[in-house]
């Protein structure tokens, strides 16, 4: 039975697939998939930036993370939340507990309070235990929470850096080939953004922030720093992970070598 029905079913599926193939191929020849502005002009993230946290030995640079935090605080935080991060986490950037306390206390948006006895709502200064207060944005577009942004985009930190430095005028060649694809009013052309037109105005400029460590705040520097900072917010465990990985791998190499020798010894008379 199996040897009669099996081949029949196999031929049935094969016929259905080849039918789909034929229909699809004919259609493709008659009317090839149209090329689109996105297909022609979208760019993959630039890979030319070196990050201190790259590679199996890479670590974060605290000075860079602090600069990146300054960029987030002074610029990004106007529209973007960072809700996975609590103020207490900032000690990982090299701030002392007292500094973290001060940062939390002076944060612009206060923590919300609710009194269950009276039903009154109010606010109070943030403490290190609080998460960074959410940002509510009423304007065009939906600014995503940035806590995990480098893990949530292909290219990670390279993507964030490329997007922030990638704003440009819409190429004339694009408008010539796709006259309907003119960037709509209120949006901005950015070839690193998935659909080329992003609602976020260019957020960074030279000297958009003042760095306390004296580094010159160029657009490029700010973009690098905030991309590094957002890599930390997405993967705060990265340094510990790599530092744990090395002894684990070292132990496993030794254990596997011993296991191999033991296997060879046991099998010596059986080959």
């Amino acid at each position, binding site marked *: 039975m199996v*040897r009669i029905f*099996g081949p029949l079913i196999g031929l049935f*599926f094969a016929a259905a697939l080849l039918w789909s*193939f034929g229909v699809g*191929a004919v259609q493709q020849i008659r009317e090839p998939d149209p090329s689109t502005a996105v297909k022609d002009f979208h760019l993959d993230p630039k890979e030319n930036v070196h990050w201190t946290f790259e590679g199996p030995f890479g670590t974060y640079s605290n000075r860079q993370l602090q600069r990146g935090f300054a960029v987030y605080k002074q610029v990004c935080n106007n529209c973007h939340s960072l809700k*996975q991060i609590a103020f207490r986490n900032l000690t990982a950037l090299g701030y002392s507990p007292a500094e973290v306390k001060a940062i939390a206390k002076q944060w612009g948006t206060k923590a919300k309070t609710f009194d269950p006895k009276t039903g009154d709502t109010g606010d109070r200064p943030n403490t290190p235990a609080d998460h960074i207060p959410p940002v509510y944005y009423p304007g065009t577009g939906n600014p*995503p929470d940035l806590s995990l942004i480098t893990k949530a985009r292909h290219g990670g930190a390279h993507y964030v850096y490329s997007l922030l430095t990638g704003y440009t005028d819409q190429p004339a060649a694009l408008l010539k080939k796709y006259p309907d694809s003119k960037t709509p009013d209120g949006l901005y052309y950015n070839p690193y953004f998935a659909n080329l037109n992003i609602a976020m105005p260019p957020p960074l400029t030279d000297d958009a922030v003042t760095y306390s460590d004296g580094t010159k705040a160029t657009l490029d520097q700010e973009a690098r720093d905030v991309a590094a900072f957002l890599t930390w917010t997405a993967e705060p465990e990265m340094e510990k992970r790599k530092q744990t990985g090395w002894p684990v*791998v070292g132990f496993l190499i030794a254990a596997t070598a011993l*296991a191999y020798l033991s296997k060879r010894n046991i099998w010596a008379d*059986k080959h």
Partner: protein
Amino acid sequence: MSFPWAKNYKPSHPLMVYLDEKLPLPRLIYNAIGAGYPVPRNLNYAWNFGVLAGFCLVLQIVTGVILAMHYAANAGVAFDSVEHIMRDVNWGWMLRYAHANGASAFFVVVYIHIFRGFFYSSYKAPREMIWLLGVVIFLLMMATAFMGYVLPWGQMSFWGAKVITGLFSAIPLVGTPLQQWLLGGFAPDNAALNRFFSLHFLLPFVIAAVIIMHIWALHIPGSSNPTGVEIKTESDTVPFHPYYTAKDGFGLGVFLLLYCTVLFFFPNALGHPDNYIPANPLSTPAHIVPEWYFWPFYAILRAFTSDFLFIPAKLMGVLAMFSAILVWFFLPWLDTSPVRSGHYRPLFRKFYWILVLDTLVLGYCGGSPAETKYVLISQIAATYYFLHFLVILPLVSSIEKPQPLPYSITESVLGTDALTA
């Protein structure tokens, strides 16, 4: 399993003698994976993967049970509870990466185990039951992995759940009510997330039960081997312990080395970035793709683009995708060649390697965006996939002239056997 020369368990310590009378658990272990189980002496490293698969299941259960202590299966907080595990639970990031990459490792190991079975025709008599149980395990694994991927409640979790449960809506008449019944709603939401969590916790233990039957069935005829020639005498075998415990120990070391390298240095390489975006029913991702281990089957699903003989393309795709695995159930009766091992089947061997390549091509297409070129390639690759199992295998079995087999396992290892000399 009992060959006449199998060693007998003889407890010497009084406590072990006592235990053997009341509850002979040590005897069971001794006969299952100890010196009491004679195994062909010529097993190559392809035979390591059964033990590795068992190890992966234990790894997944241990990490999974601990993760479940910290995870909250509620659509409102599931995503944040996973981030809580990653950030606030001691070593939580390691547990979660171990579990997520553990699923990938499990599938890598099981795919090699299955393709070992294809090459050496491990499904042939007297081992059909082992094979059938193995396919059941694989189906359970797919269900478990799918539901586990929904739990973090990211974009791919949500849209993957929507697409996969949507497959049931292709069934005529009862499809849409069935899909709504499965989800407990019109779209994936809290009801779906909760039942997926419940089943994701349950199914691994069902898998463990089927694995026990898989191994039980294995111990009746004993392991097959690379020559496919059955065991004749004691010199064809070695006791499982210490020979294969040592060999499996080395294999486990190599496996852990690769697994830990991914876990500690590339923990997100096998995942999709979109799953770090919280689930949003109002925003469809540009490309919905499942985890890599489903890609070949996803390519088959998407390969049906035109209605055929009044059967809707979507229904054909669903039927074909499930058939792509169900066909494995019939392998023992489709491949009728009396020779088991691919080493002695020159024609079969060529088609086997085409199948390996074909599956990789299907996997590549399944992971790519649904563009015309990938769909056209998967249509050809899927055609071969079905023809291979349902037409080529029966045909090859009847026309192929196998190469001569060695007299015995001993002869294949030593070049000579005392029995033939």
